[in-house]
């Protein structure tokens, strides 16, 4: 047992850092430090830089553009990009639909979609949740009825992140209403330009516009856009959701946010001295750091276990806690960051839906503090709420 990185791993980490220093535009990095959302152009710029270096999709099979790194190197790359901070690749493409396509798709689908996903030529969004199908996802109602060479899709998806930018949506649709609810679902790829698709923004409590409703009315989807077998979509969805064991804890992002908190707390005054000197504040900070250290090692245990069994078998039982603990820590950091700014977190700087022409209110770096806190309440809700995660652990790990 040795929890230090090997010389080779350290050399690799330096290589990643050098790449980040040489390739990530400083204005993009600064926007991330300030807690601003990266816009589509930033992400496209960064994805192209990664592609040019061959690092766009490290975890994919080498045939499809993967780097062949072992799980530890993949983790180091992820952590370094998060700590830097660099934009995180669009998960809906490279972490979700990409792996479904290269695992279950046919040759034509792989050739058509995968290179464009890796290079962010196509922006993908996820059509899973519906107004009546949240935690009980398998109760989804959006229907796809076969009509010659097409499926005709009718229904509504919701919480669709970045649908406003999307070129494509991967959807779970019901193809057999008579079957048991998990057995009548199929996995369809739908071009967002198809007639009958309407996207309506949902404004969230932080004032932001990340999520949308997507209405599908008589949308005609070529049958060749079915992934895998008809009615097997639930299996692919489970694969997609279970595939995420290295990115879900977001350890690197929480480290970066804690570093930012330290930096700001050294500048913000409290009782006539920098906040960082306040004992109570330091204890809150230390408590989060301790939890994060434990989570980091839990994460590394999972990575090491994946490396040992070639990333194919059952995940290590510890992996199931990454989502729960990771989300709790992310929420604790965004909470603390807002509290660092104190009353200066109050001014509302306008929202992304209506836009704002006002000049920023000083200090401008405080602008994202409260929205960040409000926005991050989502992380214990999305991707299977923490309560659903606990149900899963109780059943799958504890055998209850």
């Amino acid at each position, binding site marked *: 047992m040795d929890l230090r990185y090997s010389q080779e791993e350290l050399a690799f980490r330096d290589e990643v850092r050098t790449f980040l220093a040489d390739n990530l535009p400083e204005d993009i990095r600064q926007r991330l430090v300030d807690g601003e959302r990266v816009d589509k152009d930033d992400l496209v710029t960064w994805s192209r830089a990664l592609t040019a270096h061959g690092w766009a999709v490290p975890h994919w099979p080498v045939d499809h553009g993967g780097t062949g790194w072992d799980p530890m190197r993949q983790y180091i790359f992820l952590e370094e990009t998060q700590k830097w901070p660099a934009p995180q690749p669009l998960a809906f493409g490279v972490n979700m639909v990409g792996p479904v396509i290269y695992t279950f798709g046919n040759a034509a689908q792989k050739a058509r979609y995968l290179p464009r996903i890796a290079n962010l030529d196509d922006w993908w969004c996820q059509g899973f949740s519906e107004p009546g199908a949240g935690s009980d996802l398998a109760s989804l109602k959006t229907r796809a009825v076969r009509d010659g060479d097409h499926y005709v899709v009718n229904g509504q998806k919701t919480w669709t992140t970045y649908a406003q930018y999307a070129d494509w949506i991967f959807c779970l649709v019901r193809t057999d209403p008579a079957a048991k609810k998990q057995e009548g679902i199929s996995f369809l790829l739908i071009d967002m330009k198809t007639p009958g698709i309407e996207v309506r923004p949902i404004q969230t409590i932080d004032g932001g516009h990340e999520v949308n409703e997507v209405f599908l009315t008589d949308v005609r989807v070529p049958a060749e856009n079915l992934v895998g077998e008809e009615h097997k979509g639930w299996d692919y969805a489970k694969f997609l959701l279970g595939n995420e064991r290295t990115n879900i804890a977001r350890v690197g992002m929480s480290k970066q946010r804690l570093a930012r908190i330290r930096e700001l707390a050294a500048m913000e005054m409290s009782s006539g001295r920098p906040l960082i000197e306040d004992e109570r504040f*330091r204890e809150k900070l230390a408590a989060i750091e301790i939890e994060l250290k434990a989570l980091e090692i839990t994460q590394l245990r999972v990575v090491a276990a994946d490396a040992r069994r070639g990333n194919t078998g059952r995940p290590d039982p510890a992996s199931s806690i990454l989502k729960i603990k990771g989300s709790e820590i992310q929420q604790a950091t965004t909470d603390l960051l807002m509290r660092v700014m104190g009353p200066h977190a109050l001014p509302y700087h306008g929202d992304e839906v209506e836009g704002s022409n006002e000049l920023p209110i000083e200090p401008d770096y405080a602008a994202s503090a409260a929205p960040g806190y409000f926005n991050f309440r989502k992380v214990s809700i999305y991707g299977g709420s923490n309560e659903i995660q606990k149900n899963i652990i109780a059943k799958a790990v504890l055998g209850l």
Partner: protein
Amino acid sequence: MDFDLTEEQSILKDSLDRLLADKYGFEDRKRHMAGPGGWSADMWGRYAEMGLMALPFAETDGGLGGTPVETMIVMESLGRALALEPYFATVVLCGAALRFGGNDDQRAELIPQVAEGALKLAFAQVERNSRYDLHHVEARAERDGGGFVISGRKSVVLHGDSADRLVVTARTAGSARDEGGIGLFLVDASAPGVSVRGYPTQDGLRAADIQLDRVAVGADAVLGDPEGGLALARRVVDAGIAALCAEAVGVMATLHALTIDYLKVRKQFGVPIGQFQVLQHKAVDIFVALEQSRSIAMFATMMADNEDDIERGRAMHAAKAEIGRNGRLAGENAIQLHGGVGMTMEYAVGHHFKRMTAIDITFGDADHHLRALAAKGGLLAA
């Protein structure tokens, strides 16, 4: 980076777990507790035969050259069984005092005796007013010719009533809370002027209050620097904290297993109570606490022999705080999930809860270590 045990380490773990599964059931433990000394001389002999006492010492000193990983393995296994023997006091704490503070003669004299299980030691550090501060030392060691005369009172000396010799912290200079002027002394437990009052602790182990009344020791009784011994005391306690964290993982693992089993067999409203979601979620909370504890105990193990006092100290603060917090959460929830049965002496889970609680308030509870880490700038501070 590598989380695997070596083949030898795996064998160590398997054979100790087998021995304890075979010989250290709940009823066996009760019997050992009621026996002379409050622990099993038979088991102590078996540990020595397995080489556990020799593990952490250098081969040149008569040990097996084990690393903190070996100590982690042993302590986790002992924790799983709630073992009562004075391994922690003798091998982990005082063993560290000998390893890091003993001169050639002291190591040559004492380590072989410890390694074969013939010598039991205890670390006499806590005082009535010291709480968790290692630098708070009121006991005095006055220079007398070439040696010292030690007077003072030590509280809650773990396994102090089993020890043949004590490692005593005493002040050679300065006043009660000075960081300088502290020495560590080897004192024969049967020396004139030493009175030992042993008693059971809440977790079923043993401790003692020890009065030292003008106890004369020679110059050869000093471990390390008689005026600059605080750093050595810190190393001893840091080794202890890493080991306690590992023990806590074992204790918590059993707490967790007992609780899951109970949820599966106990029926109410016609079904096993483990089918109720509100109880399932509490069980998952215990699981999460266990896994996070396992991770932080590994971190403590990796840092236990780190030469950098500041870095090592920070790591131990973090680990002990996390273990204390998680242990309490796991223990209290385990009792709650067992209902009335969890409250009874005759059922195992309460004893694990009590050991977990004792670990928290040994060498600093979660609040103490969180405060200490915060005062030192936190874990991620450069």
